[in-house]
């Protein structure tokens, strides 16, 4: 603490930044790393401004030399979408939390959008964005980025909204009693408080995004197919050419990319965000990151962050002020404006419903709707059976790992990595097997749905099992509780709240995955399972918008019903009865 006092005594942080000191070794390493990153960003961004015809001149090739470039383009798309999601979150969630009326619409909308199959929308958005920038790659790029965005934004916004609504009341009172202006309050209280949950959700979103980036790079619009340079297009090409080695390369590249961004981006962010965790006692173990430590040790680097800090400062300087010093009586909104608002909402709802029904009914009839419901039931059976199977396998394994801290420490990151890995990259292997052994696609395509999402069950169960208090385990041991009784009274109740979280995520993900998992191809061989996912996939390829809309609506309905009728009650039960305080 010897060094702190002079800094605290009157020297401001900004002047400290400008104070030139001899760069240290950490500076050098960090500088090279950052310069490299910047180079990569520029290199990757170059391709975006080109005209669309460029894609025909330089089509995606399966040359491993190009793979790093493709991986780069894909990663940049991911981060562009993440940035967009972040901006969306900050604006929309803040609006929802601040304005009661905005909240009335935004909150349920976010809740529903979280569980809607994003892949189904691809057809609509591509057309729109290509129309915005006709003949330019930018349009298609934006469409791809938007597709990823739609898979990332909702849960981030929802978490941010919930954080804003649960700001501790004493901190809220401090801010109000000092008359902090809205901007200052946001930067000082709301944003920091919401950061840890937001970072966690960004990581989840990122994992989910990989799945969609693979599916959204090779886009078919009507009868033209645009393939953006990226891992997804590489994969699509490898599948049509039946190039086994190329798929292996893609898997490797994906693994490398995920590992890199985890180490270079998310670990440092998590380590940094730890200081915003709202607790008054120092936690036993803090998340660590070598990259974060490196950045913190350097001095030159703070210059690089000056723009971000500067932006915050600028906001504060331009801050119009207007923090209300004294509370005003809550003015009940006038009856007339309230009525007008409700009437407006009702009119909008009726109009929207009318449009949708009209659009779908022009080409479809009740028979179609019934058929879709039947298909949805098929997919639902798949999801249920698969979740049950995955639970039977992973719950015992997860508990076993979770109770052994050494193993848990090593395997937890692996499970999280597997959850982040886009399982659709692995689909071709499964297809080859099914074709080879002449298996029934209706049965054997199903496991693909849960290939990527089962890991959520595993790592949540591991977390739950390691959270079972030692005294409970010791008590169970003392009284000789073992076998089925041990599972029934110790392990299962202990992990249940965690298990529900994992199973909920896995089930939602599986519904979504069914769109790519129920209809897969290998070269000219097409495997097809009957189900709602395949229905949507087929309608998308055929450009049959009414069918896509019907399929998406049906799936949304099922997912939401699933959440409301199965997972939420289970979750409430777990919270009430089984949460270990």
């Amino acid at each position: 603490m010897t060094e702190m006092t002079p800094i605290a005594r009157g020297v401001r942080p900004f002047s400290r930044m400008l104070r030139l000191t001899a760069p240290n070794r950490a500076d050098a390493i960090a500088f090279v790393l950052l310069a490299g990153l910047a180079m990569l960003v520029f290199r990757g961004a170059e391709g975006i401004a080109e005209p669309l015809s460029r894609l025909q001149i330089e089509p995606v090739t399966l040359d491993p030399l190009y793979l790093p470039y493709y991986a780069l383009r894909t990663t940049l798309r991911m981060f562009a979408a993440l940035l967009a999601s972040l901006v969306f979150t900050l604006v929309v969630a803040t609006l929802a939390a601040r304005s009661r009326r905005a909240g009335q619409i935004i909150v349920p909308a976010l809740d529903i959008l979280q569980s809607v199959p994003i892949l189904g929308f691809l057809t609509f958005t591509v057309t729109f964005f290509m129309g915005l920038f006709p003949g330019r790659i930018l349009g298609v790029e934006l469409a791809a980025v938007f597709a990823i965005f739609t898979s990332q934004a909702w849960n981030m916004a929802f978490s941010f909204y919930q954080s804003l609504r649960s700001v501790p009341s004493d901190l809220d009172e401090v801010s109000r009693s000092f008359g902090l202006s809205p901007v200052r309050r946001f930067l000082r209280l709301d944003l920091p408080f919401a950061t840890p949950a937001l970072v966690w959700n960004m990581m989840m979103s990122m994992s989910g995004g990989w799945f969609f980036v693979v599916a959204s790079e090779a886009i078919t619009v009507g009868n033209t197919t645009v393939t953006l340079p990226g891992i997804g297009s590489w994969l699509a090409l490898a599948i049509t050419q039946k190039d086994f080695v190329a798929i292996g390369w893609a898997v490797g590249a994906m693994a490398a990319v995920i590992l890199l961004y985890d180490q270079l981006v998310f670990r440092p962010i998590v380590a940094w965000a730890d200081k915003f965790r709202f607790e008054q006692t120092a936690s036993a173990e803090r998340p660590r990151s070598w990259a974060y430590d490196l950045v913190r040790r350097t001095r030159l680097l703070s210059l690089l962050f000056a723009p971000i800090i500067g932006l915050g400062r600028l906001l504060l300087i331009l801050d119009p002020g207007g923090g209300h010093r004294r509370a005003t009586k809550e003015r009940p909104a006038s009856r007339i404006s309230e009525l007008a608002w409700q009437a407006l909402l009702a009119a909008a709802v009726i109009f929207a419903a009318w449009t949708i029904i009209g659009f779908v009914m022009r080409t479809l009839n009740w028979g179609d709707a019934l058929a879709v419901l039947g298909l949805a039931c098929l997919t639902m059976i798949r999801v249920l059976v698969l979740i049950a199977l995955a639970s039977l396998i992973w719950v015992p394994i997860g508990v076993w790992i979770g109770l052994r801290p050494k193993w848990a420490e090593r395997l937890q990151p692996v499970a999280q990595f597997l959850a982040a890995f886009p399982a659709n990259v692995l689909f071709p292997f499964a297809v080859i097997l099914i074709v080879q052994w002449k298996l029934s696609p209706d049965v054997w395509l199903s496991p693909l749905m849960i290939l990527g999402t089962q890991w959520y069950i595993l790592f949540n169960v591991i977390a739950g099992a390691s959270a079972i208090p030692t005294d409970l385990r010791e008590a169970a041991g003392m009284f000789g509780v073992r076998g089925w009784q041990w599972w029934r009274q110790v392990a299962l109740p202990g992990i249940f709240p965690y298990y529900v979280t994992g199973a909920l995520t896995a089930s939602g993900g599986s519904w979504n995955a069914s769109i790519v998992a129920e209809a897969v191809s290998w070269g000219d061989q097409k495997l097809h399972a009957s189900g709602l996912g395949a229905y949507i996939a087929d309608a998308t390829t055929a450009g049959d918008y009414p069918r896509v809309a019907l399929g998406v609506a049906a799936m949304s309905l099922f997912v939401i019903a699933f959440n409301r009728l199965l997972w939420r009650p289970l979750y409430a039960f777990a919270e009430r009865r089984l949460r270990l305080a």
Partner: protein
Amino acid sequence: MATIAETRPLVELSNVRHFYGKGHGQMLVLDDVDLTLNENEIVGLLGRSGSGKSTLLRSIAGLLRPSEGDVRFVLGEDGNTPSVSMVFQTFALFPWLTFLQNVELGLEAQRVPAEQRRTRALAAIDLIGLDGFENAYPKELSGGMRQRVGLARALVVDPSLLLMDEPFSALDVLTAETLRTDLLDLWCEGRMPIKSILIVTHNIEEAVLMCDRILVFSSNPGRVAAEIKVDLPQPRDRLDPAFRALVDDIYARMTARAAPEPARDGLFPGTGIAMVLPDVSTDALSGLIEEVDAAPFDGRASMADLADELQLEVDELFPMAETLQLLRLADLSSGDFTLTPPARRYAIADVDQRTAIFAQALLAHVPLAQHIRRILDERPGHTAPARRFRDELEDHMSPDYAAETLRTVTHWGRYAEIFAYDEGADQFSLDDPS
């Protein structure tokens, strides 16, 4: 303090009333409070939980606006409106800001230039004696240090009036004592910029130790029940007979209110089955009976001694004592707590007899327990959904109070074995799984 300086008013409250909730189940928490805070005095608000002290404090802080009445700040000699700032029970420090940044928060909100901000913050830190910790984060500090930061943060904006919401109740006894003494020293030496302090507390001794004037609040709804001037010179000595006499006197006043009204309905808000029951465990009740039954009390104790002996604050001791009074197991008057004959029998009884005594008291004196038991007796299956009683209670009180009351009566009823409750099915029944 008996000073010759004229007492200028700082804040005047008139006819302040406040309700929580809307429509049915609306609770009146503050009823017709008139209050003037003067310069150069420490005023204590003393009362139990639910007496609206915190609501009153927040009305003055401008954090909420009372449903009716005025909070008026009297312009100072310099023509400025008096300013207030607040110290919180939970410290309310921002965990992501350093100690120094936390202190500077209020200045930052006022757009004080950075250099000046730093100088003033360091002066405040110096005043409360925390030099050297400027760059520490709150989680690195102990509770006492955190509350010092809270105090520095409140003082640095030069408030005329310092509001303190149970500032020492989250600290251990020794730390709390140190902080109280330090604060009093600063006040007596006139080293703080403030003109007056308003402190909310549950602790009668703390109030007598610090305040020049104590306002005793009655609860449900909160009203000023008594105003007590404390003329003892500072520093005060807890063992001084005059000090003890004053503490006893306040206990007497706090127990006096129940006497003129019928004991059964006067204690807790609401009457009949709509009475709000406090969350008091039967173990605590047994413990209190045993304590008073044994030597040195022998069935009769002054509330002040009891609080001292058991290290309980007003908001913990009073609900227990009043519950026993409600059950006619004790009598509470003029600061004395006396066990009734059934309670003396209870103290020496075995488990089964205790259950019987408690059951008898419960069925005789708690209308809600009576009511539930009667319904269960009348129904053919001897079961009744809890929802039904919850709805009934919500006709008379807010959902929170209804839930707490039902929880309490469930707990008491289970202990007395007058009915059983199944949480999963959310229903009451007569059969006891024993």
